[in-house]
């Protein structure tokens, strides 16, 4: 018996007795494995726990309570006031010229919940509120506190992030569909919304969406205000935008209390994700996974739901996942992705062998390509033969290209060089040929080639930015393992890109972010100038982020504090606040 066997045994153990063989195997294993001994101790203690008999009077008491509940119909029920009552409350509040803060406790929440439950004008039948208990069992999730809008118009309502108590497990989804966008774009936005709601509901979050939210949007409330009004600590905004003529779905996670954005993902509608810059401690293959993980991570410290896993725990858990042949190829691949993210590169022979076997046997080309990609930097001689075989026999362009790029690690080997040279000339795919060419270049030469592109004003800015992100192949994926060093010449090129308002906003913001690496007094001054005066909120937010490392300087700190209080755009305020929080 090994750790995996024991874990599986415990997962499937009911209240039955273990037979002698299983007992002996468990005993033998737990004597050699401390972690499994702990698990077994817990299970053993619970199996031995003695449970009192059900009190004989319990059933009678329950029936009596139910009868009482029938006699007093509102007892124990959520009271729903109509919109008219809601408006009366609002008008009353306006007359009193005050903002009503309503804080409830679990026991006496009914009257307060009536306010939260009162739908705005058209929010009656089609509003969605999904709880982890699904459609079968009744939802019992309760909002910790709500605030009644005050004033004679919805816009007059305001909320105080200092005093309100928000439910960490409630999430408001604010959907913004551009009616002028293409049908496919609108459908993609709605699809992302439904997938996100389904996934987060399954993770136990109370999802508030649909008309319950859209009517607040129509009434002019800001996203974070809607979150506070509905008692939710997290607001997810989903909308569409066009970047470099490609339609995207943009998903942003915002903390309703602090107004800080804590996650952003942008997915290209026509293909795969362009990028996602979640602040994730380890790699996530799917933006959806990353969203869920970001929300869980945000929630965990607030409620101590689960301790943050240590790197050792992540490595241990994902090593098991990678090696477990009973799991799906995709699950094992995710284990390898996370493993690499946690420890930088995959170093264990057992995992390398498992990855090779998976890349050779999987029917899924994405799995094969991703595995070759994740093995970059593994520096294992065992990989050479399988990689050479892959570039010869792999039918999928992505998987072949990733295999070729990973072979760059072994380009000193004569056979590898010969194979890459062959590939760079003969492969049917231009992208594979380019990857092979890139793999043959020494790092310094590759940097020179990329730098020449970055500083060349004659090239389109998008191409120069791709070169900056060490992706000369133009395949829409950002970033391999780093970027070209930002020397003075590159910094000048970036400043020129950042300051030219004719450039695409996303390119300007990316240039600003990369300026952070220059970390010179001149670049700091440039960033301050952009933060204070650029017309684009995206560029100002990028400048605020890029100033994180310099936030210890008084002038920078003052500028960030000003931006965090006064900038007209929430994303800039949020970025400035994060920069201040992350100051050295």
């Amino acid at each position, binding site marked *: 018996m090994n750790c995996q066997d024991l874990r599986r045994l415990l997962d499937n153990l*009911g209240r039955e007795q273990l037979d002698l063989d299983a007992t002996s195997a468990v005993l033998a294993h737990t004597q050699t494995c401390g972690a499994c001994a702990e698990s077994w*101790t*817990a299970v053993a203690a619970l199996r031995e*726990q003695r449970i009192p008999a059900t009190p004989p009077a319990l059933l009678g008491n329950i029936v009596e309570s139910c009868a009482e509940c029938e006699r007093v119909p509102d007892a124990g029920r959520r009271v729903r006031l109509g919109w008219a009552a809601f408006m009366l409350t609002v008008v009353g509040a306006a007359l009193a010229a005050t903002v009503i803060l309503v804080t409830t406790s679990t026991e006496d929440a009914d009257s307060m919940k009536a306010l939260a439950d009162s739908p705005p004008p058209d929010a009656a039948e089609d509003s969605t509120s999904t709880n982890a208990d699904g459609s079968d069992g009744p939802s019992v999730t309760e909002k910790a506190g709500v605030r009644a809008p005050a004033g004679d118009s919805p816009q007059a309502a305001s909320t105080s992030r200092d005093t309100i108590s928000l439910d960490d497990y409630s999430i408001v989804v604010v959907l913004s569909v551009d009616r002028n966008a293409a049908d496919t774009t609108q459908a993609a936005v709605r699809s992302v919304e439904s997938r996100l709601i389904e996934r987060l509901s399954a993770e136990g979050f109370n999802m508030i969406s649909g008309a319950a939210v859209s009517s607040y949007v129509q009434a002019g409330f800001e996203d974070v205000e809607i979150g506070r009004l509905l008692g939710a600590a997290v607001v997810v905004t989903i909308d569409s935008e066009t970047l470099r003529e490609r339609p995207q779905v943009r998903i942003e996670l915002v903390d309703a209390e602090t107004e800080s954005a804590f996650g952003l993902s942008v997915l290209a509608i026509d293909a795969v994700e362009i990028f996602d810059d979640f602040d994730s401690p380890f790699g996530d293959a799917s933006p959806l996974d990353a969203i869920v993980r970001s929300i869980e991570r945000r929630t965990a410290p607030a409620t101590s739901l689960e301790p943050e896993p240590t790197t050792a725990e992540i490595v241990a858990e994902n090593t098991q996942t990678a090696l477990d042949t009973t799991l799906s190829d995709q699950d094992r691949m995710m284990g390898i992705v996370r493993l690499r993210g946690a420890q930088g590169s995959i170093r264990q022979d057992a995992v390398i062998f498992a990855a090779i076997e998976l890349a050779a046997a999987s029917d899924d080309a994405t799995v094969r390509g991703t595995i070759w990609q994740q093995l970059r930097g593994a520096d294992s001689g065992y990989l050479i033969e399988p990689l050479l075989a892959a570039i010869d026999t792999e039918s999928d362009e992505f998987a072949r290209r990733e295999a070729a790029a990973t072979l760059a690690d072994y380009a000193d080997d004569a056979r590898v060089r010969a194979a890459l040279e062959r590939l760079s000339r003969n492969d049917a795919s231009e992208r594979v040929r380019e990857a092979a060419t890139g793999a043959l270049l020494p790092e310094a030469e590759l940097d020179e080639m990329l730098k020449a592109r970055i500083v060349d004003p004659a090239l389109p800015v998008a191409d120069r930015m791709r070169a900056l992100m060490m992706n000369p192949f133009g395949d829409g994926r950002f970033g391999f393992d780093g970027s070209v060093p930002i020397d003075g010449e590159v910094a000048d090129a970036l400043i020129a890109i950042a300051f030219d308002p004719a450039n695409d906003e996303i390119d300007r913001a990316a240039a600003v972010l990369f300026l952070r690496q220059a970390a010179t007094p001149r670049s700091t001054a440039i960033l301050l100038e952009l933060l204070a005066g650029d017309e684009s909120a995206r560029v100002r937010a990028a400048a605020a982020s890029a100033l994180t490392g310099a936030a210890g300087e008084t002038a920078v700190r003052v500028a960030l504090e000003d931006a965090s209080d006064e900038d007209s755009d929430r994303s800039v305020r949020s970025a400035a606040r994060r920069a201040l929080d992350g100051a050295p």
Partner: protein
Amino acid sequence: MPSSQAAAFGHDIEPHLTSLFRAAYRLTGNVADAEDLVQDTCLHAFSKRASLRAATSPCNWLIRVQYNLFIDRARLAETRRVERLEPELAATLTGDGRLNPEVRHEERERELRLLDAWSKLMPEQRALLALKAEGHSLADMQAITGLSISVLTARLHRARQRLGRELGRNVDTTDTDLPMECQR
């Protein structure tokens, strides 16, 4: 005098009351809170009794309501801890009549240690371990919690390790590490 609807509801839930109470006792750690939790669960269920009758597995349906209720309250209370089992309540534990006083004392000590360790777990961890200890399969637990099997097994694993660690923190108990059936 209970109404006919309340009486009929009592009839519906009676077969499941022991399961509900056992799970509630594991969750709360004492009889009084367990009774309260079961009562509140049943009151919620009474307001949705049509759904209860339509449920494929009424027991799982009720356990799911109880699970959600417990989690929601625990989330709101955040720092609420399981109270230690009072000594006099320990005497109400079933099946200890045949044990001599010394063994009974050891049993009680062990029970108190478990409750101490249990109180240090997060509510979700307690809830999952309680369901598992009550013999629910992973498929049942998936239906009850709405979590995927992979999430469930990962969380169960962490919860077991945490409880084992807490149990091991204060005690050096080679003879209590293993269940009775393993000591033969």
